[in-house]
């Protein structure tokens, strides 16, 4: 394991200290927790937004804390959902009197722990709403199962719900727009190499020298197909087509695109993937409102990428364009 760390069991705590040291004017932490909060929280008269999950997906989620996006991010152990007491601390820290929206990625652990936190908060009289992001089309959707995972599309929920909260909207309104994003966003990913959880010390799985995996999850959950490494154009086609199967787009539809790197893939390659994705959109007459290319929702040092498509209407486009001063999602 080749990592720049001190103690595999202290990575989350040390990372948080390093974040506070780097961004003391933007972030603060609640002592004794792994919660990162907007420096000026709670913002009175604004719905508070809390997200989080296991660590190892940086800059998610602390990088999305800031004016115009999240009010707090709760960091669990690497790839492990945070516990309800931590989430509860975050809720208390950001409640500015208009209630708090929890943005949860759809994993059983995250859902259960955030739900329990919501119950604790409600017991203390804080109004809480929850939305569950499940953008990963690699997983079969079904109301009878755990359903789809939440991956990179989550960041667009943060952005748009954050902008809505900034307008002074009510908790119900912010929740409604977050749900609209969720119903309009789809992601499909692939991986070329595994990653190593520091405390585990060795990779969670292995791929062959020439193998890649379509549909792999951001914690190394198995994908839907292992194949020989394909050219970037073919990978882009596979990912986009899988999304379009689930969410058909027609001419003149408007989308935002996110080409997300999983941590170990050079930015150069992400742009090469985007070249093809943009061509496909052009061919289909789809209007690309904005494209984000970078490492937004990573999986430690995993090599690979995901493509996210968010179908926009006027409201979503306007909120997406709104300013944000989150460290990893600055917009002006």
């Amino acid at each position, binding site marked *: 394991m080749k990592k720049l760390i001190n103690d595999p069991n202290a990575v989350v705590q040390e990372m948080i200290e390093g974040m506070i040291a780097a961004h003391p004017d933007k972030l603060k932490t609640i002592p004794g927790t792994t919660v990162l909060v907007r420096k000026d929280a709670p913002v009175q008269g604004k719905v508070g937004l809390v997200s989080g999950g296991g660590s190892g997906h940086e800059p998610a989620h602390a990088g999305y804390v800031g004016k115009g996006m999240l009010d707090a991010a709760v960091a669990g152990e690497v790839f492990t959902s945070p516990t309800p007491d931590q989430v509860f601390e975050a809720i208390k820290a950001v409640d500015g009197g208009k209630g708090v929206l929890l943005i949860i990625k759809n994993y059983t*652990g995250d859902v*259960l722990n955030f739900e329990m936190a919501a119950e604790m908060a409600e017991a203390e009289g804080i109004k809480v709403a929850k939305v569950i992001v499940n953008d990963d089309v690699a997983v079969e959707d079904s109301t009878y199962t755990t359903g789809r995972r939440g991956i990179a599309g989550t960041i667009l929920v943060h952005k748009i719900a954050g902008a809505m909260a900034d307008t002074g909207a009510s908790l119900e309104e912010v929740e409604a727009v977050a749900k609209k994003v969720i119903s309009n966003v789809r992601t499909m990913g692939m991986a070329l190499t595994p990653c190593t959880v520091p405390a585990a010390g060795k990779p969670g799985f292995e791929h062959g020298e020439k193998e890649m995996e379509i549909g792999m999850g951001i914690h190394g959950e198995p994908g839907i197909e292992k194949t020989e490494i394909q050219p970037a154009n073919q990978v882009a086609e596979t990912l986009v087509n899988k999304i379009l199967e689930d969410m058909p787009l027609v001419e003149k539809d408007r989308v935002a695109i996110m080409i997300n790197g999983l941590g170990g893939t050079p930015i150069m390659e992400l742009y090469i993937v985007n070249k093809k994705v943009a061509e496909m959109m052009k061919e289909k007459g789809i209007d690309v409102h904005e494209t984000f290319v970078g490492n937004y929702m990573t999986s430690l040092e995993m090599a690979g990428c995901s493509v996210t498509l968010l179908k926009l209407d006027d409201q979503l486009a306007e909120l997406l364009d709104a300013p944000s001063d989150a460290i990893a999602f600055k917009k002006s």
Partner: protein
Amino acid sequence: MKLTIARAKEWMLTFNQRIQEEKDHLTELDQAIGDGDHGLNMARGFQEVVKKIEPTNYDTLDALFKDVAMTLISKVGGASGPLYGTAFLRLSTALKAESEANREKFVEGLKAALDGIKARGKAHRGDKTMVDVWEPVVDYVQSQSTIHLSQLNELAKEKMEETKDLEAKMGRASYLGKRSIGTIDPGAASSYLLFASLADCFQKGEMD
């Protein structure tokens, strides 16, 4: 038979011991169809539980089980933390202010715990989760006039083993679809250890 505070404590200590022994095995099961941390999660959580309850003097069962629940909830995370946490919280509530519970009361408490797991996790029997052990065990203790400890143990074990052939519908293993078939569910395996520990702690052959 009565569930005294001493016996309840012993149950938790025995369970912790079994968990620590089987930690790697539980993790291996979770590596096969989950994210490979179930053994670590349970071991971390129950180590903290023991650290909390062992030196504490309890006057009531609900105080003890509440400490178990809150420790699990705040130390485990993942799916199993809130699920086991909720189970012990419901058990605690059912035993409100009792310093010991007779069989009927205890069985009521176990039923409440199961209902808590199901309410929280929304899994049904057959979804390849801990519910596949909990529900038949609770059915058994509710329906029998005489509870044979060895039968309880055997039943839990059998139900755990039956999860091997199921396709996961809930939890992380559900992403695998049919590929989840062939491995015992890790949460079912830890739940079996919970009931095996329970059986162990009542030294007689029957629980009356």
